[in-house]
């Protein structure tokens, strides 16, 4: 089983409580099963009795995990609890045990074709989120960096990977890679941190440099965005906890924004389940709870406007808390255009 690659994680996390304060979904649900300890206990049960892989309660918990990576980043030994959950999802899929809703969702992401348009040395991949295009993000980026080619068509394989359909994810990734190579560009710029993470890891393309949009915008000639007033920053889990990319914060500093971190600390994830984006389709009530958790904090600290480099987070917040003012980082940069 794939999960057996993570026996060290199971052994370390099954009786460990040291990251529970950062368990993002558990903070919203209060459930023990939504913590890395809960996940490791479930994995351990499955390790001891393979038949437990078909336990519907366990399958649900495994798919509900929000995969923020906050606990892994906090852990002094960096035990890869995210990897364990992805491996379990892969095991569920390979055993033919994926719930119907998961399989149906996965099918939507299998038959994608990619096309490239425009002119430029860089290739921009604006596909921002799981289910809706957010044209304002691409529009904002292209207003600052207009001379680029654009690749479109759908998700490059990350969603399928998150769902545990690893072979299918790789098949999509191969098509995406072919389209990128055919473009002749050596650099691809992405707005979606999930895609950024995928193209830096399992979906990496030989000879192609991957940049997040904020890394490119950092080098652009921009003025001040201070006129936007006080902004509160919600980071992307993929950028902070997976890739250790700090370009968005550097960009905001360069733009002269008055920026404060969201909440009372810099370790919690407020990305509303970005790490497991398909969750918004599979378990919308959980996304709603994570958003409600963020809204509660926003009210307590009198947040006026949120800026985030995560299109998913913006989408989740706008879906379940439309009263919030949320800007993508590309939109902040566009506001500083000279």
């Amino acid at each position, binding site marked *: 089983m794939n999960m057996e690659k993570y026996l060290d994680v199971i052994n370390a996390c099954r009786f460990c409580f040291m990251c529970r304060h950062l368990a993002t979904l558990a903070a919203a649900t209060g*459930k*023990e099963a939504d913590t890395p300890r809960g996940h490791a*206990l479930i994995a351990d049960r499955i390790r001891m009795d393979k038949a437990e892989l078909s336990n519907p309660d366990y399958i649900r918990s495994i798919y509900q995990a929000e995969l923020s990576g906050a606990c892994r980043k906090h852990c*002094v030994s960096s035990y890869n609890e995210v990897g364990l959950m992805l491996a379990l999802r892969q095991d569920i899929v390979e055993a033919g045990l994926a719930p119907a809703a998961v399989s149906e969702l996965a099918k939507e992401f299998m038959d994608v074709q990619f096309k490239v348009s425009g002119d430029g040395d860089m290739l921009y991949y604006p596909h921002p989120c799981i289910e809706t295009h957010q044209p304002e993000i691409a529009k904002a980026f292209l207003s600052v960096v207009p001379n680029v080619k654009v690749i479109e068509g759908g998700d490059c394989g990350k969603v399928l990977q998150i769902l545990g359909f690893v072979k299918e994810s790789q098949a999509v990734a191969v098509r995406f890679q072919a389209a990128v190579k055919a473009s002749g560009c050596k650099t691809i710029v992405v707005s979606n941190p999930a895609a950024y993470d995928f193209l830096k890891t399992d979906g990496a393309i030989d000879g192609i440099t991957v940049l997040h949009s904020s890394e490119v915008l950092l080098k652009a000639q921009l003025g001040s965005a201070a006129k936007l007033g006080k902004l509160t920053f919600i980071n992307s889990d993929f950028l902070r906890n997976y890739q250790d990319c700090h370009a968005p914060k550097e960009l905001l500093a360069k733009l002269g924004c008055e920026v404060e971190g969201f909440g009372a600390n810099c370790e919690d994830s407020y990305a509303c389940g970005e790490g497991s984006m398909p969750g918004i389709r599979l378990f919308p009530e959980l996304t709603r709870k994570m958003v409600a958790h963020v809204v509660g904090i926003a009210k307590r600290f009198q947040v006026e406007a949120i800026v985030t480099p995560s299109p998913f987070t913006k989408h989740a917040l706008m879906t379940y808390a439309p009263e919030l003012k949320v800007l993508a980082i590309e939109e902040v940069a566009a506001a500083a255009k000279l």
Partner: protein
Amino acid sequence: MLISRQSYSYEMLRSELTWVVGDDNVQTDCSEKLAHSIDYYWVPEVWHDRGLKPQTPTFIVHPGSAEEVAEILKIANTHKIPVTPWGGGSGSQGGALPMYGGICLDTKRLNKVLEIDPVSLTVTAEAGIIMQHLEWEVQKAGFSTMHFPASIACATLGGFIAHRGTGVLSTRYGKIEDMIMSMEVVTPTGEIINTLPVPRHASGPDLAQVFLGSEGTLGVVTKATMKIHPLPAVRKFHAYLFSDLHSGMVAGEKLMARRLAPSVIRLYDHASTISIIKRVLGIERKGAYLVFGFDGEEDIVDLQMKKAVAICEETAVEDLGTEGGQTWWDQRYKFYYPPYTFQMPQAFGTLDTVATFANIENVYWSMKDAVKEHCPEANYIGHFSHWYDWGCMLYARFIIEKPPQDAAVAVALYNRIWDAAIRAAIKNGGVINEHHGVGLKLGRIMRDLYGPAFNVLEGIKKTLDPNNIMNPGKMGFQGV
């Protein structure tokens, strides 16, 4: 009363509980039951490790208010169903284990900071808040609770109250019972009561002290007001190496006897110094490692530090400097993360106790003898981590590298060591526990510790909880 899933009672109870807290907040699924069947007590861990299945609760209920807690307890009284409160679930004494099934009352929805009073320097919060979250919010307002236990990331405010928890700065700022101003408590019969608003008074006995350390046997704490402090201008540390435990202990006693008001003192025995201090802090020395620290206004701290350093210089064999102390502070929680902490396949227990300075070294040695007598292959290590004007706490541990594979044999050995060590501590002036509580693990020794006074505790329990629904079988009280 154990409730079969296929029974009228099960469905009736689920309906009643759901009516109170909503469908989302009554869980019966395997994932939640599994996670609520194991806390930080070694026995359920070894059961799980050996493929056994610890007792699970029938229902896990997440109330969102004191009123909902009260309604749940009234239902439990009507049906005489055991209720086991669960905060973070990180207790090491089995106090949160649902040993008779029934309702596991998970308090983590009670997680709001309600008020920070910058004039009186207090914070009021719901008791299910995880301590780190509370501390972060208080810090954002420019203050600190000064409560920094190793379990800050996982235990709740209510959990600390239930077990008389403590943090690393206890020597200056006290244990949780010193930090609490007042509490809201739901009694076992469902009344919502409040203790007096201030902790110092002459208005009768201090009711708060009845609930502090009651481990969920006398009610559910739903809200508390605790003291907060300004963030200190400076926090400084220093460490020394002593040739042996006794000389380190004498130095620590002098630091306290001179009333220098350190925020922390920690003295590690030789066995700890050569093992965990080396492994976690990278300080490779033989002897007894002593660290202390002060916080507050810089000129005052510097003066305190100067006097403390002078005391240690008299007998220490090596000055490890501020760096040797700061490293400890920076890494203070690392001791408890895997792989630095003790974990399976090891068997381990924290035999923490407290005694006067006159007795504490005898307690240390008598416990060591007891452990060695009953399990010669066990390692015994200890450090002294919470210091008072009159004595200090011993955080002794036994570790068995390869315990018996059979869970029953392993648990029998484990319990035998506990019995012998704790009874040795009591005989020499110690007590059952200093800040982890009694729980399931040590309840059987309570009557020995208290003698006839235990009847008083039992009387309080029977008065407050006539149907014995609250966490039965814990703290030496009657089971179901």
